[in-house]
Each structure stands twice: as C-alpha cells, then as structure tokens.
C-alpha cells in the first residue's frame, strides 16, 4: 500500500509517522520507533509476546495494521516504568519469581495491566483467562498468576489507581 501519515498517542505522547498503513504495529514499534520491549515470538497472533494496549485493551500488535491505530492510544511496556520507577505489577513479577527467560514477560505484564485496569480484584480463574493468550514456556504460569494476584492486593492496599 501507499505510505500515509499516521498520528497516534504512544505512551502518552503524540507520534506522527509516514508509513505503509498495512505494516503491522509490531514492526512499526520495533523497527521504526525503536521500542524493542515489545517482543516478536511468532508474528501471527499465536503467542502474545507482542501484546500492547490499544485504547486500554490488550491486543497482539503483530495483527494490527498500523493504519488502524490512527487517532488511537497505544501503550507499550516502556510506559510502565518511566523515570526509573517500576510499576507494582512489575515489582510483583520479580518478587514472585514470575520472570525466567523474560521473553514473554513484557506481553504478560501488559495483559495483567489491562486486566487490573478493568477488574482490580480478579479471581485466579480470571487471571488465567486474561493471560491465556500469552504463551510462556519457562514458568508453568503459576508464579505469574501469583504475581498478578499479589499486585492486585498491593494496588488495593496502596489505594492506587492502576495507572
């Protein structure tokens, strides 16, 4: 397709790019905008490593043609730990041993983030459902689930809103 100008909100800042609108959001984020925190595990929507938030919903960035994000809000893993601060979800991932090779971790954290935005006190089954599109080969998911449960409690204790 012909290139066109795409303007969207990326990690709370406006971005303007001139790009083939059929290019995937994943390759735009990584190869054009240098945001390598979003991982490419299959590029076919089958592993969830490339999960980002599109208007607050977790999506596979590899399946989103960038033309679709025109005027939308996109959040990547880089937005969760700005200015040297680490999000409570990330703290709990470390604390509970939920990070092994770490390749699924950014996508997994973002699925958790999207879940907690919508449902601040999820049950374990809801957590499993929320991360069921994120494959992890290292962990068997148990410590990831523990981390998300624990992050929900921590956020509630702190009386923090998720963001």
């Amino acid at each position, binding site marked *: 397709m012909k290139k066109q100008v795409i303007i969207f909100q990326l990690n709370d800042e406006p971005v303007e790019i001139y790009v083939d609108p059929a290019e995937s959001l994943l390759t735009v984020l990584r190869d054009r905008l240098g945001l390598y925190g979003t991982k490419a595990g299959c590029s076919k929507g089958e592993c969830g490593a490339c999960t980002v938030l599109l208007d607050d919903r977790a*999506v596979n960035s590899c399946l989103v043609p960038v033309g679709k994000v025109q005027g939308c809000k996109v959040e990547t893993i880089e937005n969760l730990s700005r200015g040297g601060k680490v999000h409570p979800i990330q703290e709990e991932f470390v604390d509970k041993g939920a990070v092994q090779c770490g390749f699924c971790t950014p996508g997994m954290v973002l699925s958790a983030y999207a879940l907690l935005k919508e449902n601040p006190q999820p049950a374990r089954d809801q957590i499993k459902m929320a991360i*069921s599109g994120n494959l992890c080969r290292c962990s068997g998911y148990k410590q990831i689930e523990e981390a998300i449960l624990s992050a929900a409690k921590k956020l509630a204790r702190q009386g923090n809103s998720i963001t």
Partner: protein
Amino acid sequence: MSYLTVSTLEEALTSLSDSSGKARVVAGATDLFLQDLPHSLVDLSALPEITVVEEKDGLISIGAAVTHTAAASSSLILARARALAEGCSAVGSPQIRNIGTIGGNVINAAPAADAAVALISLGAEAVLIDVNRETRQEAVENLYWTYNRSLVDSSKEILLRLLVKPCLGGEGSAFTRFAVRRALALPMVNAAARVKLENGLVKKVRLVAAPVRPAPTRLIQTEELVINQPVDKDTLKRVEVSAAGEVEVRGSQLRCSARYRQHLVGVLIARVLKIAADRADPGKAGD
C-alpha cells in the same frame, strides 16, 4: 486512498463505490495478514452505529463491529442470547477477542467460527447494505459460499448488524466446544443450541454443529426428533446417536479423525441441548 478509518456509514459506502471493487471493508482486521492485501481498506471499527448492542423493536441488535469481548460481556446478550456470549468467549485469545468482531467472524466464513455457530443456533439474521444503498436481511447461514469464502462481497457490501430474537420465558440457549487446548485453538467440534420448552416438552429447537460443512450446520433430523419430547436422559441418548448419524464430516491430521469428530458431534449436541434446556426453565425469565 489506502487505509481509511471511516466515521460515518455514508463515508464508508462512498469510499467503496469510489474505488470500484479495489477496496474492501475490514473491522478488527486480525485476519488481514493471512490474505493478499487489497488495494485499499475501509475500516469500520469506529462507526458508532455498528459498534453497539441494543434492544430494538423486540430484537437484540448487535452491531457488526462489536468485538467478541464486548459481546461476551454484554448484559443483554448474557441474559437473552447466552449461546452468543459463550461462543464469543471461546474465540482465539483475549487479545484476539478484544479486536476481532462478530461481523468478521461471520464474513470470514471459517467453517467452525465460534460466534457464527452461536448466531446460527439463535436464528440470527444479518442486515446488509450495498454501495447502491440497498439493504437486505438474510439468515446468517445463508451468507456462506464455500470454505472460508462468504457470499458477501466486502468490496460492495457492508454487514451492518445481526438481529437475534431474545430468549424469553421458556427459552434457553447454549454453546460448547471441544479442542485440544483451552485457548488459542480451533475446535475439533463446536455446537450450539436454542430450545423452547412448554410443559417440559420441546416446542422449538435449533441445533447447530461445526465444522461439518463449509457453513455451521443445522441438524434438522435431530431437531425433528426432539420436538414434543422431554429433554431427559433417554432423549439425549437418542439425540447423541441421531446427531452423529446425521452429519458427514471430514477428518484432519491437525485436529482429529472423521470418525471421532462425528462421535463428538453427537456428544456435544446432546450436551449443549441439555444445558440450553436447563436454562429454559419457564420459571426463569430466559437464559
């Protein structure tokens, strides 16, 4: 023009007619990269009139660009068209459900698309408009051409909404599926039912299974079998045998053999009918 997110239906139709067959409409666009890219795309996902679920003239109207996530959590659909909520929650993964739409599930015409199977069991009708501004209404099962090909030409016609008669007193619906894995997996078989009971006997029923033919398939003989019967153990046994006997299915190396799939059709149809019937308790307001 190449990728256009439209904000009015008029804009969408004009774009289609202006590009005389070289553009086509998309909504979630999750299957875009699996196909050859057209010259240009008209994205409908921001059209306000097709992104809502509402009750209108006694019908549930589900906009074609409603995502699977939205449909699965709609209180109206959960209360009055439960099979559809269940079908939508079974699609792919949360990430895919968050962006993939009901309309796409129908128009992509996959033989065992979970939302479409549920819609057909519910007797859903599709409302379409073409570039000449002519609208038509069609039963969802009549939109299929062949495997993964819809009769709806996305360069000329737009699916606007799906209309479902709500399940009211004495009526229930349900959806179920059987797959190797509980997420990110196409089903070996999926099945859905809508049933109306009177005095404990089946008065109306729609039973749908897939993948059987290119389109999700109604099991007419089995439907006839249960009319005026109670949904009890004995009937369900006969339903299982009848449903399996009624279909001719294909096997696939990736999922299962034809013989096993046929067996599963029987098991799943009986199970889903039972769940729908349990929800059709006349004491309740519907499913």
